[in-house]
């Protein structure tokens, strides 16, 4: 039974990895078409993606700007909401938190269509900053959750201790709340970073074809057939994801963030 369980997990991992392995392998092709296993293996596609091909370097630059900008903005938006929810727990705070999570909870294509109209009226359609704000709003729910988990983990007796020793609210916030929630804030930041990097459909409507992120560029190229350079993009993305989540697992408590039981280890 135990062996059967391990077999099932291994099989699941295999199926999960299968398309990723195939795409990664295809990146090594020497020619213009995708073959698996790769023919005439070379690493020159990596140089094309990162350095020489303007289509891809521009797209990569846009992706990075949008992801970093959206992650920063999402954390800045989520912090006050999570803090209000934790410190007051008022009805208003609950409503704001509910509204903030809404875009993430509905089918993304609907929010994408809405944002397309929205920026059309406000005049940001096709501008990179509108893409940044759109992703920040879409993914705000993630830092909202991680920061809330972090705030809940603060021992209230530490705050009482700070208060009895004469710390003002601001001092207690700086010396107790902020350091203890930092790993959770960073986790939220990186969740947004990775998901924004990979998000497609909302960006599709918001960019209005005037700029392309890597995922958009790949979708645009789907019609002309695959090239090995696209596979390099896929490898880059999966490596970034693994690096980010490994860092969260290393410096934060990933099982706890994912909602595992605390009492068992």
């Amino acid at each position, binding site marked *: *039974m135990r062996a059967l*369980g391990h077999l*099932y*997990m291994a099989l*699941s*991992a295999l*199926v*999960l990895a299968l*398309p*990723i392995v*195939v*795409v990664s392998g*295809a990146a090594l092709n020497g020619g213009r078409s*995708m*073959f698996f296993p790769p023919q005439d293996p070379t690493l020159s596609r990596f140089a094309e993606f990162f350095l020489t091909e303007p289509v891809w370097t521009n797209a990569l630059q846009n992706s990075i700007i949008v992801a970093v900008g959206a992650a920063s903005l999402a954390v800045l*938006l989520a912090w*006050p*909401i999570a803090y*209000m929810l934790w410190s007051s727990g008022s009805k*208003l705070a609950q*409503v704001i938190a509910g*509204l903030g999570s*809404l875009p993430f909870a*509905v*089918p*993304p*294509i*609907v929010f994408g*269509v*809405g944002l*397309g*109209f*929205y920026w059309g009226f406000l005049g940001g359609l096709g501008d990179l900053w509108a893409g940044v704000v759109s992703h920040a*709003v879409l993914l705000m729910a993630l830092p909202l959750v991680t920061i809330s988990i972090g705030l809940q983990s603060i021992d209230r007796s530490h705050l009482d201790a700070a208060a009895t020793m004469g710390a003002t609210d601001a001092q207690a916030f700086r010396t107790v709340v902020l350091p203890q929630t930092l790993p959770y804030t960073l986790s939220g930041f990186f969740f947004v970073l*990775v*998901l924004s*990097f*990979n998000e*497609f*459909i909302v960006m*599709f*409507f918001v960019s209005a074809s005037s700029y392309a992120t890597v*995922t958009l560029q*790949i979708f645009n190229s*789907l019609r002309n057939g*695959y090239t090995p350079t696209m596979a390099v993009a*896929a490898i880059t*993305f*999966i490596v970034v*994801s*693994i690096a980010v*989540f*490994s860092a969260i*697992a290393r410096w934060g408590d*990933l*099982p706890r963030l*994912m*909602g*595992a*039981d605390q009492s068992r280890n």
Partner: protein
Amino acid sequence: MSVADGIDVPLGDRPAAATRLNWSKLLPWGFAGLVFALCLVPFFLVLAISFGRKVEGAAWVWDFTFENYQRFFVGTLWPDEVTFLYIGQLGYSFWYAVIASCIAVLTALPFTLLLTRLRRSAQAAWLVFILSSLSLSEVFIVMGWDILLSNNSGLPALFKSTGLTQWLKDTGHFQTLRDWGLANPRNVKFKTSDFATILTMSYLVWPYAVILLYPALSRMDPSHSEAARTMGANNWQVLRTVILPSVRLPLFGTTLLLFVFLLGTYVAVTVFADPAKHTTAVAIYQNVRGANLNAPFGATMAVILLVSAGICLTLGHMLNRWAAAR
């Protein structure tokens, strides 16, 4: 005394204190306004534009007409002629999403159960892998499966070179595959087919299923299963009488969330589904950004998709409450 106190206070302090008070009161409301403007207004716009009217040769104008909704449910020429084309597309959205979310949850359940039994550090390592695959863009996943399933490379080529195709033909199973639309006269084919669409869609949400089931399963008390085993229950009985009843609600909730998420799948459907079986999400794109250029009708379909999702979530919530109360 009190009068003297009042005089003692420097004049500049009072207004300052008053504004600080206002600030702390106003800030949450200001924030509420900002979140409202960013999170809710786009949805209101979709709703408002869904009542708009397309202008031939131009864009569209504001209006308050139910024509778009009529077109969606019974067609423009109703009552002379009735067409269920758009309802049919919504039906395909539901069909793919229901099957794919059920498959994902049913296969993720045993995996997650096994995952929670591992050491904490091993769990973290698996979670890194699951999360990386979860965040991988839809376009990459579709690209991977497209290479795997396309006719000139991947599985069909593998079938042919290993002689599996010939074996299927000899044993007569090939005809069954042809009946299911999974083969052409020469070899098996997976593009375009419901099989490829549903496979990719369930692959897309499988990591989500694990992540959503993980909290509930990791909080499950293992002593119950052990007690049942000591009393002589076999594995199947433990699963049926102890584990499944205790995770029934999260199992149902997860399926529902994945279903709603899959209702809007776009890339997988455009690449893998037969054009005659395209979904509402594809039609929304074609009207808002694509060839049709009928933004109000696209908005109408978006509203209907959203309302359908909302109805499913509400029904699910009610069913959950009913089941929990029993």
